[in-house]
């Protein structure tokens, strides 16, 4: 039987986590803060590193960050593919938007499209909605967490085919994110959702409005 010395500030932390484990959980964050400190000083001398460690720990304890169990996987090859695709898309979309700016900005029409997501992980959805803004023609406007639907604004869109293309692109980006950072469970769930929708891609949630 070991008694767990619990400080007054640890009321939010589940009691079963002993303090060495809590310390270990904080280590990556403190190391990252230290790395940033050293980079900002531009001088990797021992004094800077020690000062960085002190400041990092002080910031960490002052901020009283809650412990969030991060459940993400990491597949280096898939992540590399994701970075490559996002990078390419960033180039393509920048060129496209720049072209529209200079050519005919007043006739550029957009659309807001609902895309049902096949993953249910908070972390993946957060990363995805960040990544989508860098991808050709898409900007996440709204995220319905209960139903797992993202609403994406895209330009330039003037036909149902263009909207369909945007939808496909969002789903492809989602797949890349799940394959790169999803846990095994996320991936299994993703494939379970993906199977039946193979024939008619996301046809279950398409609104009947014919504008």
């Amino acid at each position, binding site marked *: 039987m070991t008694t767990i010395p619990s400080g007054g500030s640890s009321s939010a932390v589940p009691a079963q986590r002993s303090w060495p484990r809590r310390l270990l959980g904080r280590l990556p964050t403190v190391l990252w803060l230290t790395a940033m400190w050293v*980079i900002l000083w531009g001088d990797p001398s021992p004094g800077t590193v020690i000062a960085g460690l002190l400041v990092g720990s002080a910031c960490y304890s002052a901020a009283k960050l809650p412990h969030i169990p991060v459940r993400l996987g990491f597949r280096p090859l898939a992540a590399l593919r994701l970075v490559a695709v996002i990078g390419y898309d*960033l180039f393509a979309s920048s060129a496209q938007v720049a072209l529209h700016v200079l050519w005919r900005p007043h006739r*550029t029409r957009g659309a807001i499209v609902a895309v049902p997501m096949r993953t249910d992980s908070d972390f993946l959805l957060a990363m995805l909605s960040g990544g989508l803004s*860098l991808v050709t023609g898409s*900007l996440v406007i*709204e995220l319905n967490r209960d139903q797992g639907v993202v609403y994406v604004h895209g330009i330039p*869109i003037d036909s149902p085919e263009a909207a369909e293309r945007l939808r496909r692109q969002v789903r492809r980006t989602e797949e890349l994110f799940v394959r790169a950072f999803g846990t095994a469970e996320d991936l299994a769930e993703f494939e379970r959702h993906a199977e039946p929708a193979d024939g008619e891609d996301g046809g279950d949630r398409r609104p009947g*409005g014919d504008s």
Partner: protein
Amino acid sequence: MTAVLDWIALGCLLGGALLSFAAGVGLVRFPDLLSRMHTAAKPQILGLLLILVGIGLRMAPDPRVGILVLVALFQLLTVPVAAHIAGRAAYRTGRVRRDLLAIDELRDELAEDSGR
């Protein structure tokens, strides 16, 4: 070798400047907020990244290049979030021009929500 690097740096700086210029013009010339957020989220980021790469190539052996990496990283992390929040607030407060939207699948959803 340094000459080649200098030319690459020059290309990056010019490309970045052009894209940043396009982003600035887009802010003025696009008709509504949602399209403007697109220029803020795409050409602006890529323009900045290219300029940072250009600067980085010029001062390569200096350890302070790390700062440029930090700038790029935090831009990539924060700008999409800012664009998302601005777009969301604009939509929710009705600052969106409907005549510029070919399809709007969010309107029906919100109408259902408020009808409940």
